[in-house]
């Protein structure tokens, strides 16, 4: 019996009902798994909505739905993808599971708070979904909820922003928990400079979550107040200023894009050295750039507002700062590439996904420069160029980062290995598909096609159709990947503790890790990328 329990690790039932054991668990690994499943579920919903958008745009005019439905669908697509998928994705799922393990800790600092933020996530998600079926129907404002439109729209905006409000708190509490965990729960010998880069990235992310998200809360609260009491806080006739709404919104939402990307960068920084068998190049620079991005990320929000009617001085300042933030990202890319230099590279699936990440993130990030430059942004702002940019960084960046983590840690979580060949193929198809899907959007944007358009002029038809074909290729890659992982969960080849030969603490545990993590508190004596003497344990050991 003891044996079976070890084999199932933290999955092993302790005899309670499923609900009690999972929904009320305070084990960080279970909470992480709950997040993972919910995030994947929402991701699939979001993806179907994305697919519906693409089908509608296959021809000008009406293809499969009317304008009201379209506007609702892209709003929902944006809200789900941003607030329910990419913001929680890596930190809430993999952060929860692996942060304490990488620190050599028993759990996060506040386990009850942890499950509470999961409930908030579920409640927030449920409220957001309820807004679809009640009141005036699905909100049609876009995920940015700009006033005054969001104040006059007859759709169910109030309920939707209530959902966003709750989700914000879920995110804040996760961040808070992680900061305290990293400060207080590192194993003996695990100094700040021996911390793997994934916890470092989570640390930087957590600060953004704590210090930026409350602005979102107050902003959506103001929308609700505006709708329910009609105060006119953003109404010029009553002394308000609609552009201030945009400031408040982006004060949160720009830093939020770094909430999305930093954890993915952290994962990639952890994966690359493992498969190159050499330490990460410039460890301190990478962790420094994470913190720099987190800080400088809060200085650039108004680059979303270059043509909003704000002052030209502000345009200059924010454009300047935007370019400055691009540098730490560039530094990371160069350091990753240098890590490969003279390595002994094993192209296993996690590495393929990580390299896919670098390529796609660079494709997206570099067009951020076009957007950050005031003159060029004037042309491409609110066109498909922007849509292309953020899909590359969010899907190609965060999405691929999430997939990389899934493939990297899958054997740890399930104690089994997926089909590596299929995983690699899925990665390659995804890279091709994502380019097919989003590259035409750059061209559309340069040609002047505005975003959030239900209908378009005939001259844009060809590019829209190319993009739609691309979405089908993406679909194939995604389906193959998910099927492979789903199947291998139960039927994969059993695998040993440390199939990749990684040097961080989670790989010293059995797979899946036991409920109590470490039998005795580990003592750390070297850095996280020290591969000397680390054995690749492919086989299940029978000690």
């Amino acid at each position, binding site marked *: 019996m003891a044996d079976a329990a070890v084999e199932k690790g933290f999955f092993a039932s302790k005899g309670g009902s499923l609900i009690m054991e999972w929904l009320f668990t305070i084990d960080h690994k279970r909470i992480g798994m709950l997040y993972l499943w919910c995030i994947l579920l929402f991701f699939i919903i979001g993806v179907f909505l994305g697919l519906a958008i693409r089908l509608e745009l296959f021809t000008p005019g009406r293809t499969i739905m009317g304008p009201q439905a379209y506007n609702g669908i892209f709003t929902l697509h944006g809200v789900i993808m941003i607030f329910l998928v990419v913001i929680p994705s890596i930190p809430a799922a993999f952060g929860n599971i692996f942060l304490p393990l990488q620190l050599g800790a028993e759990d996060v600092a506040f386990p009850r708070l942890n499950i509470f933020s999961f409930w908030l996530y579920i409640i927030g998600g449920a409220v957001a979904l309820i807004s679809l079926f009640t009141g005036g129907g699905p909100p049609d404002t876009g995920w940015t909820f700009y006033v005054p439109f969001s104040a006059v729209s007859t759709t169910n905006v109030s309920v939707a922003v209530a959902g966003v409000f709750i989700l914000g708190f879920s995110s804040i509490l996760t961040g808070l928990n992680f900061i305290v965990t990293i*400060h*207080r*729960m590192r194993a003996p010998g695990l100094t700040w400079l021996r911390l793997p880069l994934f916890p470092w990235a989570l640390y930087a992310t957590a*600060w953004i979550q704590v*210090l*930026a998200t409350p*602005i979102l809360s107050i902003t959506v609260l103001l929308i609700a107040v505006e709708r329910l009491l009609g105060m006119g806080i953003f109404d010029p006739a009553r002394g308000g*200023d609609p*552009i*201030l709404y945009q*400031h408040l919104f982006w*004060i949160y939402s720009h830093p939020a894009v770094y909430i999305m990307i930093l954890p993915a960068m952290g994962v990639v920084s952890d994966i690359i050295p493992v498969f190159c068998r050499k330490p990460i190049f410039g460890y301190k620079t990478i962790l420094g750039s994470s913190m720099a991005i987190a800080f400088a990320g*809060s*200085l650039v*929000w*108004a680059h979303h*507002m270059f043509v909003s009617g*704000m*002052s*030209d*001085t*502000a345009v200059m*300042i*924010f454009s300047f700062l935007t370019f400055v933030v691009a540098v730490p990202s560039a530094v990371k890319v160069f350091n990753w590439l240098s890590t490969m230099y003279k390595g002994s590279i094993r192209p296993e699936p996690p590495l393929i996904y990580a390299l896919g990440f670098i390529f796609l993130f660079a494709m997206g990030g570099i067009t951020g420069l076009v957007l950050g430059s005031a003159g060029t942004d004037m042309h491409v702002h609110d066109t498909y160029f922007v849509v292309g940019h953020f899909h590359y960084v969010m899907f190609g960046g965060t999405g691929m980062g999430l997939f990389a983590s899934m493939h990297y840690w899958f054997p740890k979580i399930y104690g089994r290995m997926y089909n590596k060949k299929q995983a690699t193929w899925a990665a390659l198809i995804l890279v091709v598909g994502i380019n097919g899907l989003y590259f035409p959007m750059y061209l559309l944007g340069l040609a002047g096609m505005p975003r959030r358009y239900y209908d378009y002029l005939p001259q844009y038809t060809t590019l829209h159709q190319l993009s739609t074909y691309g979405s089908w290729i993406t679909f194939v890659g995604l389906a193959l990947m998910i099927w492979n992982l789903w199947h291998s969960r139960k039927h994969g080849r059993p695998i040993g503790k440390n199939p990749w030969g990684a040097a961080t603490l989670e790989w010293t545990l059995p797979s899946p890790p036991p409920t109590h993590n470490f039998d005795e508190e580990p003592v750390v004596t070297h850095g996280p990328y020290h591969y000397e003497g680390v054995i690749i344990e492919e086989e299940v050991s029978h000690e």
Partner: protein
Amino acid sequence: MSNDSAHSDHHGPGYTLFVIVWGALLVCTALTVYAAEIDLGFLNVALALSIATTKAALVTFFFMHLKYENLTFKLMVLACFVILAIFIGLTFFDTVYRPVG
């Protein structure tokens, strides 16, 4: 992880200190009300805010025991206020320089 005895050697300061700080806060309040009576133009706002900040500092350092916390805590508080200052400050680059009209 701190060992459990860590906080038994945490001797907070005594009652008197806090009563003194309270007295100082009341004096500040009186001062700021008085200062508002005299017209200093825009300086009024600046003065009121400096007094408020003094009071806020008294509250954080003494009532909230920040004075007795270690450097990490102090840096964190600093980070929070720096960020808030950035949010307010950078917004002014827009609103102050908007063409009037």
